[in-house]
Each structure stands twice: as C-alpha cells, then as structure tokens.
C-alpha cells in the first residue's frame, strides 16, 4: 500500500483509543450513524481505504443502531465489508442478505481429544490421507450421502438435531453448537427448487476457498480456568472444521438477493451499493429471506456435524485400538456469517435488533442464557482460525462485547493479498515444502489452492486476536498450532 493511501486512512479516522477508531458520520452523505473500526495501528496500516467506504455504505441503511462496525480482521468484501457487524432495529430497521453473505453460516468448530501430539505425529501423513479421502473437498465436491426432499426439510428445520437422530454424532454435540445448532423459525417453503437441487448432494463436503479441516495441538494455555472448562490442555491434539452451507446457502442468498433488490425500490430505500439490497425487517420480503437464511444456517450446522462424524471415524480407526476412548468431544461450533434477532441494551434501553455478522463471531459473556450451561460461568468459546500453517485461537466472550460490539468479535486472520496476486507471486509447491519443514502437512486437490491460502496472504492472526483481547471483547484462553491441513 502506498504512503499516500496510509495517510488518507489516518486523515479520515479519529482515534478513540489504541484499538478503536471512529469513521465520522459525515464521511459520506447519507450515513445514519458513524463507523467504528476496531484495529490496532499495525492493522490500520494495512487496511484498504475501500473497506472504510463499505463501512460507510452500511451506516446509511435504515434503522442501524449505534455504529457500523468493522472487526480487526476487516477487509474489502462485497456490500458489507468482511468483518462487518451491524444491528438494525426490529421495527424501524432492515434485514440485508449482503450483511450475511452467500456462504450463510460459514463457521468453525473445534473438537478436543485425549491424544497428545506425540501420539499422533508418527501416523500424521496417513491420518491426513485418510481424512482427505473421507471428507470430500474442492470445487463441486459431492457427498457420500444423498438426502431426499423430505430429509432436506428436516435438516432445514431441525439442524444438528437431525444429524444426531440419524446417527451422525451424539446428544452432547447439540448443546455445544451456537444456537444448539438449530436456529428456530426456519421455513423450507421459502427455499427454491434450485437451492434444494444444490443442497441435496453436498451434505458433508468442505467446499473450496479458505475452508479446511485441520489437525492441531494446544501449544499454549492463557486462561487455566476457562481452558479447563473447555476441556483444553497443553500438548493435547484437537481438530478444527471450517466450512458453511455450500451450494444450498449460495443459492438461497442469490434467490433472495434478487427479490430484495426489487423490494428496496418498492420501499424507496436508497442503496449506495446494490449488493446491500434490503427491506424493512418486518416486511414479507425480508422475513421470507430470513426464514430461508435460517434453513441454510441449519444446513451448515449439519454439514459441519457430518464432517466431524466422519473425522471421528477416521481418528477411531487410527487410534482407538491403542488408546481406547479418544474423548473426541465437540468443544464448540460458531457461526461467523449470519443474522440473528437478539436482545441488546442500547442507550440504557433493552431492544430487539437484527444483528448481522458478516465475517464476525458472536462472543457472548458469562451468564448469558445463550451460552451452554457447562460454559456459562466462563463465557462462550470464540474460535478464531488462523490462516493455513499459522496459529488459531480459542477465546472466551466477555461483558465488554455486549457494551461495544453487540456481542461480537473477529472471525479469522483477514486477507491482505488477493487470490490472483497470491497465485502470481507464490508457488503452492514451495509453500507446501516450507510448511512440511515446519512439521505441517498439507493435502489439497491443487497446489495453486495452497498458494491462494498461504500464510503470507493473510494478516497475522495474533495481531487480530490481540485487538479483541486488549479491548476485552473476548480474551485469550488457548492457542493451537497446526500439524496437518486438509484444504478445501
């Protein structure tokens, strides 16, 4: 980024504190509220100016509360920035598919084990091969299971509960998913035949892009009490799954975006970017989208659940004879592309708002009724995946999140380099070799896919996590390091 550009970002923003910057309400005409950018100076130096434009665009949507927000991993998206958080009044606000994204309920789950790094290391290459074999990945990947329309309805309505009833997992998995892996209010009649066609063959597939399955070990514990509650300790092997609602979610967003683009005109909402198409939250058009979005969100939880189930089978096959019960418990599953109706205290008054998190993770604190009972004295686990080959973090949601970010934190490292440049500048084979020399094995359908997701194309996950930690939104509990990655 050029010096001039860096200066311009500093010229535009007002510093509130070391990790909070304000985008003034007069930065662009039509803004209803100012913006808040939660970044350190290090991250601000690499923030694109266009991301601020997108924060300002979101600020112009009707009924937005307090601030249009950008989390520390924010970067340029389409419509909302990635890392964008915005809450809209239930009665006077809007719902916008652009505030959720095409990959509805893209999210992350973490699974712990009784295995130690030393137990797994000798068998790691074969384990990775077996996981790569068991979990379909890549463009257009299709699953081993095919569901019919009736089953798809059940998945849309019941989410993870469907999976458990059908033998993909155990009862305890349910309460360790955000929203118990089932957002209420799904209406499958709002899902098109096209979305169903795409959804039927893809349940239990990783997809492509930045999605992955990673075998890791806990290398550092920062918060003993919280780590104990989450069942994490140093040296322990974990695995992490990052993916979303696949073609079903993409199609649901595509279908409803078209409806809402027309609805925006009907309700005379001025859009600075058509990708921000929206309608009044209580309108039929907005509610139809919301009910279909919930179907996709529930599908995504089932998708991650099925992938976890097959991964558990692979781990059992490799280690059960030698080590007995592997204790492959789900620590937690978070959604980071979703809109939810939540209660928040705004200017001293409790209000119902549609919180849109697009590349942002819910971070509810201790005592919140949405936090699972066994974690309620600690806070919600907030899972922040690093880029390929770098550390991921487990944090806990804290009270400050409710005060300043509508209970939200970052969602990952955040890109700094385009896929195009990455492929041009980096060699997938060399990155694979470099990671191997660090003891990290990568399996992918294509070497170029490794280049696209190389550590160099992302911000540092530790810089990002430090911001939310220092703001007290979510504080560090443990750090996990990768041993092997199955890339989507």
């Amino acid at each position: 980024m050029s010096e001039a550009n860096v200066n311009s970002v500093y010229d535009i923003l007002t510093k509130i504190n070391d990790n909070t910057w304000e985008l003034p309400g007069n930065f662009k005409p039509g803004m209803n509220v100012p913006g808040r950018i939660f970044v350190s100076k290090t991250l601000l130096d690499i923030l694109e100016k266009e991301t601020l434009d997108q924060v300002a665009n979101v600020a112009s949507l009707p009924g937005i509360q307090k601030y249009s927000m950008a989390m520390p991993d924010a970067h340029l998206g389409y419509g909302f920035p990635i890392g964008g958080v915005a809450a809209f009044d239930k009665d006077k606000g809007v719902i916008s598919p652009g505030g959720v994204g095409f990959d509805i309920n893209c999210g992350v789950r973490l699974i712990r084990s009784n295995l130690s790094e030393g137990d797994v290391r000798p068998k790691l290459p074969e384990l990775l091969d077996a996981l790569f074999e068991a979990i379909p990945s890549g463009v257009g990947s299709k699953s081993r299971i095919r569901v019919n329309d009736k089953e798809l309805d059940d998945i849309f309505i019941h989410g993870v509960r469907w999976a458990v009833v059908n033998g993909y997992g155990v009862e305890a998995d349910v309460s360790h998913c955000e929203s118990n892996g089932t957002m209420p209010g799904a209406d499958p009649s709002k899902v098109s035949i096209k979305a169903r066609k795409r959804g039927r063959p893809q349940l239990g597939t990783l997809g492509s892009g930045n999605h992955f399955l990673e075998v890791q070990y806990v290398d550092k514990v920062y918060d003993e009490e919280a780590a104990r509650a989450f069942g994490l300790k140093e040296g322990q092997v974990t695995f992490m799954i990052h993916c979303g609602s696949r073609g079903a979610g993409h199609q649901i967003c595509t279908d409803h975006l078209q409806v809402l683009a027309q609805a925006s005109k009907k309700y005379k909402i001025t859009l600075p970017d058509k990708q921000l198409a929206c309608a009044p939250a209580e309108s039929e058009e907005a509610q139809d989208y919301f009910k279909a979005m919930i179907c996709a969100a529930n599908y995504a939880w089932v998708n991650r659940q099925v992938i976890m189930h097959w991964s558990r089978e692979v781990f059992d096959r490799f280690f059960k004879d030698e080590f007995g019960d592997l204790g492959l418990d789900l620590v937690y599953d978070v959604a980071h592309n979703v809109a939810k109706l939540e209660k928040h205290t705004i200017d001293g008054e409790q209000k119902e708002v549609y919180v849109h998190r697009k590349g942002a993770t819910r971070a509810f604190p201790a005592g919140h009724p949405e936090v699972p009972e066994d974690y309620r004295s600690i806070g919600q686990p907030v899972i922040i995946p690093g880029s390929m080959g770098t550390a991921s973090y487990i944090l806990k949601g804290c009270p400050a999140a409710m005060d300043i970010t509508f209970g939200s934190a970052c969602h990952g490292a955040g890109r700094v380099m385009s896929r195009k440049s990455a492929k041009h500048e980096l060699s997938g084979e060399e990155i694979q070799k470099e990671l191997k020399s660090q003891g990290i094995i990568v399996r992918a359908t294509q070497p170029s896919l490794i280049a696209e997701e190389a550590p160099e194309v992302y911000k540092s996950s530790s810089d990002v996590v430090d911001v939310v930690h220092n703001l007290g939104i979510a504080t560090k509990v443990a750090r996990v390091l990768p041993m092997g990655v199955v890339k989507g």
Partner: protein
Amino acid sequence: MGKDFEYLEHTADAKFRAYGKSLGEAFENAALAMLNVMVDTGSVKNTLSVNIKLAANDIDSLLFDWLSEILFVFEVDEMVFGRIKVNELNVSDEECSIYATLFGETIDHSVHVFDTEVKAATYNDMIIEQRDEGWMIQATVDT
C-alpha cells in the same frame, strides 16, 4: 479492443472486466471470465450444449441472473463450459431477456483442473457500459 476479459485486484473475491463489440459478446466474455476463475475453459471439449433463457426487470439483474444461472448449471448438471453463445439479447425499459447456448462437457476431474470455487455472482461494483469501441462489463464474483 484486444483481450476478451481481464481480472482486477480484489482482496477476497474475483473482480473482472469483460469486453465485446456487442452487449451479447460482453455477456459471453463475462461468463468466460467467471468460469476461468474455476477452470481453464481452454481445456474443455465443447461436445454438449445447454440452452438458457432468462428474463429480468433491468440489465443489472439480467447479468446477475446470467452469471448465477451458469453457476447453477455447472454445479447441478456437473458440466463445464468452454464456449458461450448469446443467440438473442433484448434490452428495453420494460424487460430485459437473454437466450443463449452453453457448449461444454461433463466434468472429468482427470482432465479438468479445478481452482477456486466461485460461490456466487454479486452486484458489488457492477458496471455495464457502452463505450466508443463496444461494451464493457465489470463484475465481482464471490470466491
């Protein structure tokens, strides 16, 4: 005019400009630009064909539907396309419509090398404009 399409910088997604002497040709090249994010369309044998007919309220919506429909057929029919032919394209204030044929073959992973998946078309920073030398389409697709 030179190239049929080119890619622009975008941190997370794929942004491109496609050109054509006619609007129909620009639509063809926009489709190829999107497909080439996923696979080298030069590696595709164009032995099968699929017809597409779409109508929308305005030209932006038609482009959005056009790209979305091609992604849908790609995924559901498991086909990849190497040549796109716009047979008819009508643009008026009342309605815009397109009738086109996609030429390609069934996906064969031993032949077609897949790259990043395009999740969806978007309206972000979409431009469709007539220039002295023809038409230019700018679009961003979610990857």
